[in-house]
Protein backbone atom coordinates (compact mmCIF):
# COMPACT_ATOMS: atom_id res chain seq x y z
CA UNK A 1 0.00 0.00 0.00
CA UNK A 2 1.29 3.45 -0.84
CA UNK A 3 -0.09 6.97 -0.63
CA UNK A 4 -1.81 6.97 -4.04
CA UNK A 5 -3.49 3.59 -3.49
CA UNK A 6 -4.68 4.88 -0.10
CA UNK A 7 -6.21 7.96 -1.74
CA UNK A 8 -8.10 5.71 -4.17
CA UNK A 9 -9.47 3.63 -1.29
CA UNK A 10 -10.49 6.76 0.59
CA UNK A 11 -12.20 8.08 -2.55
CA UNK A 12 -14.14 4.81 -2.94
CA UNK A 13 -15.23 4.94 0.67
CA UNK A 14 -16.13 8.63 1.00
CA UNK A 15 -17.12 9.53 -2.60
CA UNK A 16 -18.10 13.16 -3.09
CA UNK A 17 -16.67 14.25 0.22
CA UNK A 18 -13.18 13.82 -1.26
CA UNK A 19 -12.83 16.93 -3.41
CA UNK A 20 -9.53 16.43 -5.23
CA UNK A 21 -6.62 14.01 -5.52
CA UNK A 22 -3.37 15.66 -6.57
CA UNK A 23 -0.89 13.10 -7.87
CA UNK A 24 1.58 15.50 -9.47
CA UNK A 25 2.80 17.30 -6.36
CA UNK A 26 6.19 16.43 -4.80
CA UNK A 27 4.18 14.78 -2.05
CA UNK A 28 0.78 13.76 -3.49
CA UNK A 29 -2.11 14.94 -1.37
CA UNK A 30 -5.88 14.68 -1.15
CA UNK A 31 -8.30 17.52 -0.45
CA UNK A 32 -11.14 16.57 1.89
CA UNK A 33 -14.37 18.40 2.67
CA UNK A 34 -13.89 20.15 6.05
CA UNK A 35 -16.94 18.43 7.58
CA UNK A 36 -15.51 14.97 6.76
CA UNK A 37 -11.89 15.37 7.83
CA UNK A 38 -12.20 13.83 11.29
CA UNK A 39 -14.16 10.88 9.92
CA UNK A 40 -11.59 10.27 7.17
CA UNK A 41 -8.69 10.49 9.63
CA UNK A 42 -10.36 8.13 12.08
CA UNK A 43 -10.96 5.66 9.25
CA UNK A 44 -7.28 5.85 8.25
CA UNK A 45 -6.19 5.33 11.85
CA UNK A 46 -8.52 2.47 12.72
CA UNK A 47 -8.46 0.43 9.51
CA UNK A 48 -5.64 -2.11 9.97
CA UNK A 49 -4.81 -1.82 6.27
CA UNK A 50 -3.56 1.75 6.75
CA UNK A 51 -2.96 1.95 10.53
CA UNK A 52 -2.00 5.66 10.48
CA UNK A 53 -1.08 5.81 14.14
CA UNK A 54 0.74 9.15 14.10
CA UNK A 55 -0.23 12.70 13.16
CA UNK A 56 3.29 13.83 12.43
CA UNK A 57 2.58 17.38 11.33
CA UNK A 58 -0.27 19.84 11.09
CA UNK A 59 0.27 23.12 9.28
CA UNK A 60 -1.83 26.15 8.46
CA UNK A 61 -1.15 28.07 5.24
CA UNK A 62 -2.69 31.37 4.17
CA UNK A 63 -3.13 31.49 0.36
CA UNK A 64 -4.71 34.98 0.29
CA UNK A 65 -8.00 33.61 -1.14
CA UNK A 66 -8.32 30.69 1.27
CA UNK A 67 -6.78 29.08 4.34
CA UNK A 68 -5.49 25.54 4.09
CA UNK A 69 -4.85 23.18 6.96
CA UNK A 70 -2.44 20.39 6.03
CA UNK A 71 -2.43 17.08 7.92
CA UNK A 72 0.60 14.83 7.57
CA UNK A 73 -0.20 11.31 8.77
CA UNK A 74 2.30 8.53 9.20
CA UNK A 75 1.97 4.82 9.76
CA UNK A 76 4.89 3.39 11.72
CA UNK A 77 3.83 -0.19 11.05
CA UNK A 78 3.15 0.19 7.29
CA UNK A 79 6.04 2.63 6.84
CA UNK A 80 4.43 5.26 4.66
CA UNK A 81 2.65 8.56 5.09
CA UNK A 82 -0.26 10.42 3.54
CA UNK A 83 -1.09 14.11 3.30
CA UNK A 84 -4.61 15.46 3.69
CA UNK A 85 -5.80 19.02 3.25
CA UNK A 86 -8.89 21.03 4.00
CA UNK A 87 -9.65 24.36 2.36
CA UNK A 88 -11.38 26.93 4.52
CA UNK A 89 -12.76 30.41 3.84
CA UNK A 90 -10.58 33.30 5.00
CA UNK A 91 -13.34 34.85 7.12
CA UNK A 92 -13.87 32.90 10.32
CA UNK A 93 -12.14 29.68 9.25
CA UNK A 94 -13.25 26.81 11.42
CA UNK A 95 -12.84 23.04 11.38
CA UNK A 96 -13.41 20.23 13.89
CA UNK A 97 -10.49 19.39 16.16
CA UNK A 98 -8.25 16.38 15.50
CA UNK A 99 -7.46 16.09 19.20
CA UNK A 100 -10.06 13.35 19.55
CA UNK A 101 -8.07 11.18 17.12
CA UNK A 102 -4.43 11.99 17.99
CA UNK A 103 -3.24 13.74 21.15
CA UNK A 104 -0.40 15.46 19.32
CA UNK A 105 -2.98 17.68 17.55
CA UNK A 106 -3.54 19.62 20.79
CA UNK A 107 -0.43 21.78 20.60
CA UNK A 108 -0.21 21.93 16.81
CA UNK A 109 -3.79 23.22 16.59
CA UNK A 110 -3.06 25.80 19.27
CA UNK A 111 -0.18 27.02 17.11
CA UNK A 112 -2.36 27.24 13.99
CA UNK A 113 -5.06 29.06 15.97
CA UNK A 114 -2.46 31.50 17.28
CA UNK A 115 -0.58 32.24 14.07
CA UNK A 116 -3.18 31.72 11.32
CA UNK A 117 -6.46 32.19 13.18
CA UNK A 118 -8.26 28.92 12.49
CA UNK A 119 -10.81 27.97 15.16
CA UNK A 120 -10.82 24.28 16.03
CA UNK A 121 -14.26 23.27 17.27
CA UNK A 122 -14.26 21.01 20.29
CA UNK A 123 -10.63 21.71 21.20
CA UNK A 124 -10.06 21.29 24.93
CA UNK A 125 -7.65 24.17 25.47
CA UNK A 126 -7.75 26.60 22.54
CA UNK A 127 -5.48 29.41 23.79
CA UNK A 128 -2.67 31.34 22.16
CA UNK A 129 0.57 29.44 22.51
CA UNK A 130 3.45 31.50 21.09
CA UNK A 131 2.14 35.08 21.01
CA UNK A 132 0.99 37.01 24.12
CA UNK A 133 -2.66 36.54 25.12
CA UNK A 134 -3.64 40.11 24.12
CA UNK A 135 -1.79 40.24 20.80
CA UNK A 136 -3.94 41.71 18.00
CA UNK A 137 -4.40 39.57 14.88
CA UNK A 138 -2.65 36.47 13.60
CA UNK A 139 0.96 37.02 12.47
CA UNK A 140 1.19 34.33 9.79
CA UNK A 141 -1.70 35.84 7.83
CA UNK A 142 -0.47 37.49 4.66
CA UNK A 143 -2.27 40.77 5.39
CA UNK A 144 -1.03 41.01 8.98
CA UNK A 145 0.46 44.39 9.84
CA UNK A 146 2.68 44.42 12.91
CA UNK A 147 1.51 47.04 15.43
CA UNK A 148 3.96 49.90 16.02
CA UNK A 149 4.10 49.20 19.73
CA UNK A 150 3.03 46.69 22.33
CA UNK A 151 2.31 48.03 25.84
CA UNK A 152 4.53 51.03 25.17
CA UNK A 153 7.40 48.91 23.82
CA UNK A 154 8.34 49.87 20.27
CA UNK A 155 8.27 46.95 17.83
CA UNK A 156 9.83 48.85 14.93
CA UNK A 157 13.42 49.70 14.17
CA UNK A 158 15.48 50.22 11.07
CA UNK A 159 16.58 46.74 10.04
CA UNK A 160 18.00 45.06 6.94
CA UNK A 161 14.74 43.18 6.48
CA UNK A 162 12.73 46.39 6.22
CA UNK A 163 15.19 47.70 3.65
CA UNK A 164 14.86 44.45 1.70
CA UNK A 165 11.09 44.72 1.83
CA UNK A 166 11.25 48.28 0.42
CA UNK A 167 13.29 47.00 -2.54
CA UNK A 168 10.85 44.16 -3.26
Amino acid at each position, binding site marked *: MDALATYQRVKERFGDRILEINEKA*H*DPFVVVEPSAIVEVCRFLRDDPEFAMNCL*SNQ*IGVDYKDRIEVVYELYS*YSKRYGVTLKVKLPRDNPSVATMETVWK*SANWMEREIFD*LIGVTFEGHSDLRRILMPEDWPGHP*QRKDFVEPMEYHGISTVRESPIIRLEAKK
Partner: protein
Amino acid sequence: MSIRTEEMTLNMGPQHPSTHGVLRFVIKADGEVMREAIPDVGYLHRSIEKIAEKVGYHGFMPYTDRVDYVCAMFTNQGWGMACERLGGIEVPRRGEYCRVIAAEFNRIASHLLSVGTMGMDIGAMTPFTHAIREREMINDLIEELCGARLTFNYMRIGGVAWDLPPGWREKALAYLDHFDPIWDEYNALISYNKIYVERLANVGVISAEEAIDYNLVGPNLRGCGFKWDIRKDIPYSVYPEFEFDVPVGRGEYGTLGDAMDRYMVRIREMRESSRILRQALRQIPDGPVLAKVPRNFKPKAGECQIRVESARGDMGWYAVSDGSGYPWRVHVRTGSFAAMGIINKLSRGLMIADLVTLIASLDVIAPEIDR
Protein backbone atom coordinates in the same frame (compact mmCIF):
# COMPACT_ATOMS: atom_id res chain seq x y z
CA MET B 1 -2.77 7.06 54.52
CA SER B 2 -2.58 10.15 52.38
CA ILE B 3 -3.37 13.59 53.64
CA ARG B 4 -4.36 16.19 51.08
CA THR B 5 -3.43 19.78 51.67
CA GLU B 6 -4.56 23.01 50.10
CA GLU B 7 -3.51 23.29 46.45
CA MET B 8 -0.54 25.57 45.97
CA THR B 9 0.26 27.34 42.70
CA LEU B 10 3.95 27.74 42.03
CA ASN B 11 5.70 29.61 39.26
CA MET B 12 8.85 28.14 37.75
CA GLY B 13 10.80 30.23 35.29
CA PRO B 14 10.90 31.85 32.76
CA GLN B 15 14.54 32.26 33.80
CA HIS B 16 15.24 29.17 35.83
CA PRO B 17 18.68 27.54 35.61
CA SER B 18 17.29 24.12 34.81
CA THR B 19 14.67 24.98 32.21
CA HIS B 20 16.99 24.72 29.16
CA GLY B 21 16.31 28.17 27.83
CA VAL B 22 13.50 30.57 28.58
CA LEU B 23 10.68 28.24 29.64
CA ARG B 24 7.97 28.78 32.19
CA PHE B 25 5.83 26.33 34.12
CA VAL B 26 2.82 26.99 36.29
CA ILE B 27 2.83 24.19 38.83
CA LYS B 28 -0.23 23.18 40.80
CA ALA B 29 1.13 21.27 43.75
CA ASP B 30 -0.20 19.40 46.75
CA GLY B 31 2.77 19.61 49.10
CA GLU B 32 5.73 18.22 47.18
CA VAL B 33 3.55 16.30 44.71
CA MET B 34 2.41 17.99 41.52
CA ARG B 35 -1.19 17.82 40.39
CA GLU B 36 -0.14 19.27 37.07
CA ALA B 37 2.57 21.40 35.48
CA ILE B 38 1.27 23.69 32.77
CA PRO B 39 3.98 24.72 30.31
CA ASP B 40 3.89 28.33 29.13
CA VAL B 41 6.04 28.72 26.03
CA GLY B 42 6.63 31.51 23.53
CA TYR B 43 9.20 33.62 25.35
CA LEU B 44 11.69 33.04 22.53
CA HIS B 45 9.24 33.35 19.66
CA ARG B 46 10.82 35.36 16.82
CA SER B 47 8.55 34.14 14.02
CA ILE B 48 11.45 32.70 12.06
CA GLU B 49 8.96 31.16 9.63
CA LYS B 50 7.64 34.62 8.76
CA ILE B 51 11.19 35.94 8.31
CA ALA B 52 11.73 33.26 5.63
CA GLU B 53 8.97 34.84 3.55
CA LYS B 54 10.92 38.12 3.50
CA VAL B 55 14.57 37.13 3.05
CA GLY B 56 14.38 34.55 0.26
CA TYR B 57 15.75 31.02 -0.09
CA HIS B 58 19.50 31.67 0.19
CA GLY B 59 19.04 34.41 2.76
CA PHE B 60 17.12 32.16 5.15
CA MET B 61 20.03 29.75 5.71
CA PRO B 62 21.67 31.73 8.59
CA TYR B 63 18.27 32.09 10.25
CA THR B 64 17.77 28.32 10.35
CA ASP B 65 20.73 28.17 12.77
CA ARG B 66 18.57 30.00 15.28
CA VAL B 67 15.78 27.43 15.15
CA ASP B 68 17.93 25.08 17.19
CA TYR B 69 21.27 26.59 18.12
CA VAL B 70 22.51 23.45 19.86
CA CYS B 71 22.39 21.36 16.68
CA ALA B 72 22.29 23.93 13.90
CA MET B 73 23.76 21.56 11.28
CA PHE B 74 20.48 19.67 11.11
CA THR B 75 18.32 22.75 10.65
CA ASN B 76 20.76 23.84 7.91
CA GLN B 77 20.45 20.44 6.30
CA GLY B 78 16.66 20.34 6.56
CA TRP B 79 16.26 23.72 4.87
CA GLY B 80 18.86 22.83 2.24
CA MET B 81 17.09 19.57 1.44
CA ALA B 82 13.68 21.29 1.23
CA CYS B 83 15.01 23.83 -1.30
CA GLU B 84 16.82 21.12 -3.26
CA ARG B 85 13.64 19.09 -3.49
CA LEU B 86 11.63 22.12 -4.65
CA GLY B 87 14.27 23.11 -7.22
CA GLY B 88 15.26 19.59 -8.32
CA ILE B 89 18.93 20.08 -7.39
CA GLU B 90 21.30 17.19 -6.81
CA VAL B 91 24.03 17.56 -4.20
CA PRO B 92 27.52 16.30 -5.23
CA ARG B 93 28.59 13.19 -3.35
CA ARG B 94 31.46 14.88 -1.55
CA GLY B 95 29.00 17.58 -0.48
CA GLU B 96 26.71 14.93 1.03
CA TYR B 97 29.66 13.39 2.88
CA CYS B 98 30.68 16.79 4.24
CA ARG B 99 27.10 17.26 5.44
CA VAL B 100 27.02 13.90 7.19
CA ILE B 101 30.42 14.48 8.85
CA ALA B 102 29.44 17.94 10.09
CA ALA B 103 26.02 16.75 11.24
CA GLU B 104 27.30 13.70 13.14
CA PHE B 105 29.94 15.78 14.95
CA ASN B 106 27.14 18.14 15.82
CA ARG B 107 25.02 15.25 17.11
CA ILE B 108 27.80 14.19 19.49
CA ALA B 109 28.21 17.81 20.65
CA SER B 110 24.46 18.18 21.20
CA HIS B 111 24.14 14.89 23.11
CA LEU B 112 27.18 15.81 25.24
CA LEU B 113 25.47 19.05 26.22
CA SER B 114 22.21 17.20 26.86
CA VAL B 115 23.68 14.52 29.15
CA GLY B 116 25.98 17.04 30.82
CA THR B 117 23.20 19.45 31.72
CA MET B 118 21.08 16.49 32.78
CA GLY B 119 23.64 15.75 35.48
CA MET B 120 23.75 19.40 36.47
CA ASP B 121 19.96 19.63 36.64
CA ILE B 122 19.80 16.91 39.24
CA GLY B 123 22.73 18.24 41.22
CA ALA B 124 25.88 16.65 39.81
CA MET B 125 28.28 19.33 38.62
CA THR B 126 31.31 17.24 37.62
CA PRO B 127 29.87 15.40 34.58
CA PHE B 128 28.92 18.74 33.09
CA THR B 129 32.53 19.92 33.08
CA HIS B 130 33.65 16.64 31.50
CA ALA B 131 30.98 16.83 28.78
CA ILE B 132 31.65 20.48 28.03
CA ARG B 133 35.39 19.81 27.75
CA GLU B 134 34.72 17.23 25.00
CA ARG B 135 32.18 19.49 23.33
CA GLU B 136 34.77 22.29 23.23
CA MET B 137 37.06 20.09 21.16
CA ILE B 138 34.27 19.37 18.69
CA ASN B 139 33.50 23.07 18.55
CA ASP B 140 37.16 23.72 17.72
CA LEU B 141 36.94 21.22 14.85
CA ILE B 142 33.73 22.74 13.54
CA GLU B 143 35.18 26.23 13.91
CA GLU B 144 38.03 25.20 11.67
CA LEU B 145 35.49 23.84 9.21
CA CYS B 146 33.13 26.82 8.96
CA GLY B 147 34.37 29.62 11.19
CA ALA B 148 31.58 29.44 13.76
CA ARG B 149 31.12 27.57 17.01
CA LEU B 150 27.38 27.74 17.56
CA THR B 151 25.40 29.16 14.63
CA PHE B 152 27.31 27.42 11.87
CA ASN B 153 25.68 28.51 8.59
CA TYR B 154 27.87 25.81 7.02
CA MET B 155 25.48 24.34 4.48
CA ARG B 156 24.16 25.90 1.33
CA ILE B 157 21.37 25.00 -1.07
CA GLY B 158 23.11 22.36 -3.20
CA GLY B 159 25.87 21.31 -0.81
CA VAL B 160 28.17 22.91 1.74
CA ALA B 161 29.96 26.25 1.77
CA TRP B 162 33.54 25.04 2.18
CA ASP B 163 35.45 21.84 1.62
CA LEU B 164 37.28 20.17 4.52
CA PRO B 165 40.45 22.18 5.26
CA PRO B 166 43.84 20.48 4.63
CA GLY B 167 44.74 18.11 7.46
CA TRP B 168 41.27 18.30 9.02
CA ARG B 169 40.45 14.65 8.31
CA GLU B 170 43.43 13.43 10.34
CA LYS B 171 42.55 15.78 13.18
CA ALA B 172 38.96 14.55 13.18
CA LEU B 173 40.05 10.89 13.23
CA ALA B 174 42.51 11.66 16.04
CA TYR B 175 39.68 13.27 18.00
CA LEU B 176 37.53 10.14 17.60
CA ASP B 177 40.42 7.99 18.89
CA HIS B 178 40.48 10.28 21.90
CA PHE B 179 36.71 10.36 22.30
CA ASP B 180 35.94 6.63 22.44
CA PRO B 181 37.92 5.95 25.68
CA ILE B 182 36.53 9.18 27.16
CA TRP B 183 33.05 7.80 26.51
CA ASP B 184 33.88 4.80 28.73
CA GLU B 185 35.33 7.12 31.35
CA TYR B 186 32.19 9.25 31.30
CA ASN B 187 30.03 6.15 31.75
CA ALA B 188 32.17 4.99 34.65
CA LEU B 189 31.85 8.40 36.25
CA ILE B 190 28.11 8.91 36.02
CA SER B 191 25.98 6.49 34.00
CA TYR B 192 25.97 3.61 36.48
CA ASN B 193 26.26 5.79 39.56
CA LYS B 194 23.71 4.59 42.13
CA ILE B 195 22.43 8.03 43.10
CA TYR B 196 22.14 9.02 39.46
CA VAL B 197 20.22 5.87 38.55
CA GLU B 198 17.84 6.35 41.47
CA ARG B 199 17.07 9.90 40.39
CA LEU B 200 16.31 8.81 36.81
CA ALA B 201 14.85 5.29 36.93
CA ASN B 202 11.04 5.01 36.93
CA VAL B 203 10.59 8.78 36.41
CA GLY B 204 8.38 9.97 33.55
CA VAL B 205 7.54 6.57 32.10
CA ILE B 206 6.17 6.75 28.54
CA SER B 207 4.82 3.77 26.63
CA ALA B 208 5.54 3.41 22.92
CA GLU B 209 1.84 3.83 21.97
CA GLU B 210 1.60 7.00 24.03
CA ALA B 211 4.81 8.36 22.51
CA ILE B 212 3.47 7.84 18.98
CA ASP B 213 0.10 9.34 19.92
CA TYR B 214 1.87 12.47 21.21
CA ASN B 215 4.21 12.40 18.21
CA LEU B 216 7.40 12.09 20.26
CA VAL B 217 10.41 11.58 18.01
CA GLY B 218 14.09 10.72 18.09
CA PRO B 219 15.74 9.58 21.34
CA ASN B 220 12.47 10.19 23.25
CA LEU B 221 10.66 7.68 21.03
CA ARG B 222 13.57 5.23 20.97
CA GLY B 223 13.77 5.43 24.75
CA CYS B 224 10.35 3.71 24.84
CA GLY B 225 11.91 0.68 23.14
CA PHE B 226 10.56 1.58 19.69
CA LYS B 227 13.24 1.16 17.03
CA TRP B 228 12.81 4.06 14.64
CA ASP B 229 15.43 6.29 13.12
CA ILE B 230 14.84 8.43 10.03
CA ARG B 231 18.45 7.77 8.97
CA LYS B 232 17.62 4.05 8.74
CA ASP B 233 13.89 3.92 8.08
CA ILE B 234 13.33 6.80 5.62
CA PRO B 235 16.94 7.12 4.43
CA TYR B 236 18.23 10.42 3.12
CA SER B 237 21.63 11.80 2.10
CA VAL B 238 24.34 9.06 2.09
CA TYR B 239 23.31 7.35 5.33
CA PRO B 240 22.49 3.99 3.63
CA GLU B 241 26.23 3.65 2.90
CA PHE B 242 27.17 3.43 6.57
CA GLU B 243 26.86 0.64 9.06
CA PHE B 244 25.43 1.66 12.41
CA ASP B 245 22.96 0.43 15.01
CA VAL B 246 19.94 2.21 16.40
CA PRO B 247 20.09 2.04 20.21
CA VAL B 248 16.73 1.67 21.96
CA GLY B 249 15.61 1.79 25.59
CA ARG B 250 15.77 -1.58 27.34
CA GLY B 251 14.44 -0.76 30.77
CA GLU B 252 17.74 -1.83 32.34
CA TYR B 253 17.39 0.08 35.59
CA GLY B 254 13.65 0.48 36.00
CA THR B 255 10.63 0.57 33.76
CA LEU B 256 10.90 0.61 29.97
CA GLY B 257 10.53 4.18 28.71
CA ASP B 258 11.70 6.02 31.83
CA ALA B 259 14.12 8.94 32.02
CA MET B 260 17.09 6.57 32.46
CA ASP B 261 16.29 4.83 29.16
CA ARG B 262 16.17 8.12 27.29
CA TYR B 263 19.50 9.06 28.86
CA MET B 264 21.13 5.76 27.91
CA VAL B 265 19.85 6.06 24.30
CA ARG B 266 21.68 9.39 23.97
CA ILE B 267 24.84 7.98 25.52
CA ARG B 268 24.86 5.04 23.09
CA GLU B 269 23.97 7.21 20.10
CA MET B 270 27.21 9.11 20.58
CA ARG B 271 29.10 5.85 20.09
CA GLU B 272 27.11 5.13 16.91
CA SER B 273 27.79 8.64 15.58
CA SER B 274 31.46 8.00 16.18
CA ARG B 275 31.15 4.81 14.12
CA ILE B 276 29.45 6.69 11.26
CA LEU B 277 32.11 9.39 11.38
CA ARG B 278 34.98 6.91 11.13
CA GLN B 279 33.41 5.35 8.03
CA ALA B 280 32.55 8.70 6.47
CA LEU B 281 36.01 10.16 7.05
CA ARG B 282 37.64 7.10 5.48
CA GLN B 283 35.26 6.76 2.49
CA ILE B 284 34.86 10.42 1.54
CA PRO B 285 35.20 10.70 -2.28
CA ASP B 286 36.87 13.52 -4.19
CA GLY B 287 34.96 16.07 -6.18
CA PRO B 288 33.03 19.30 -5.81
CA VAL B 289 31.10 20.08 -2.62
CA LEU B 290 28.56 22.52 -3.99
CA ALA B 291 26.19 22.13 -6.95
CA LYS B 292 25.64 25.04 -9.32
CA VAL B 293 22.61 26.88 -7.97
CA PRO B 294 21.50 30.19 -9.52
CA ARG B 295 21.98 33.18 -7.25
CA ASN B 296 18.42 34.16 -8.05
CA PHE B 297 16.94 30.81 -7.02
CA LYS B 298 13.31 30.51 -8.12
CA PRO B 299 11.88 27.00 -7.73
CA LYS B 300 8.69 26.06 -9.55
CA ALA B 301 5.43 26.56 -7.68
CA GLY B 302 4.72 23.63 -5.39
CA GLU B 303 5.24 22.32 -1.92
CA CYS B 304 7.34 19.64 -0.27
CA GLN B 305 7.93 17.85 3.00
CA ILE B 306 11.34 16.88 4.33
CA ARG B 307 12.19 14.74 7.35
CA VAL B 308 15.63 14.91 8.94
CA GLU B 309 16.85 12.99 11.99
CA SER B 310 18.18 15.80 14.16
CA ALA B 311 19.71 15.32 17.61
CA ARG B 312 16.22 15.89 19.01
CA GLY B 313 14.59 13.57 16.52
CA ASP B 314 12.55 13.80 13.36
CA MET B 315 12.54 17.41 12.20
CA GLY B 316 9.81 18.03 9.62
CA TRP B 317 10.24 20.87 7.13
CA TYR B 318 7.34 22.01 5.00
CA ALA B 319 8.01 24.60 2.30
CA VAL B 320 5.60 26.15 -0.19
CA SER B 321 6.90 27.96 -3.27
CA ASP B 322 4.80 30.27 -5.45
CA GLY B 323 7.42 30.48 -8.21
CA SER B 324 8.97 33.71 -6.97
CA GLY B 325 12.34 34.22 -5.28
CA TYR B 326 10.73 34.20 -1.84
CA PRO B 327 9.11 31.16 -0.19
CA TRP B 328 5.37 31.49 0.29
CA ARG B 329 5.29 29.58 3.56
CA VAL B 330 7.84 27.68 5.61
CA HIS B 331 7.02 25.54 8.60
CA VAL B 332 9.26 23.47 10.79
CA ARG B 333 7.92 20.86 13.18
CA THR B 334 10.52 20.11 15.82
CA GLY B 335 11.06 17.37 18.37
CA SER B 336 11.03 19.72 21.37
CA PHE B 337 7.61 21.13 20.44
CA ALA B 338 6.07 17.67 20.55
CA ALA B 339 7.96 16.77 23.73
CA MET B 340 6.60 19.83 25.56
CA GLY B 341 3.06 18.73 24.72
CA ILE B 342 3.38 15.59 26.85
CA ILE B 343 4.89 17.25 29.97
CA ASN B 344 1.53 18.26 31.42
CA LYS B 345 0.32 14.67 31.29
CA LEU B 346 3.52 13.12 32.65
CA SER B 347 3.86 15.63 35.48
CA ARG B 348 0.69 14.48 37.27
CA GLY B 349 1.71 12.76 40.48
CA LEU B 350 5.43 13.49 40.17
CA MET B 351 7.51 15.26 42.81
CA ILE B 352 8.45 18.85 41.98
CA ALA B 353 12.15 17.91 41.95
CA ASP B 354 11.39 15.24 39.34
CA LEU B 355 9.95 17.82 36.93
CA VAL B 356 13.52 19.00 36.38
CA THR B 357 14.61 15.42 35.61
CA LEU B 358 11.68 15.05 33.24
CA ILE B 359 12.47 18.21 31.26
CA ALA B 360 16.14 17.26 31.07
CA SER B 361 15.37 13.70 29.96
CA LEU B 362 13.14 14.93 27.11
CA ASP B 363 16.02 17.22 26.03
CA VAL B 364 13.89 20.23 25.12
CA ILE B 365 15.53 23.33 23.72
CA ALA B 366 13.45 26.49 24.09
CA PRO B 367 14.16 28.20 20.72
CA GLU B 368 13.16 24.99 18.97
CA ILE B 369 9.75 25.07 20.64
CA ASP B 370 9.12 28.76 20.04
CA ARG B 371 10.99 29.27 16.76
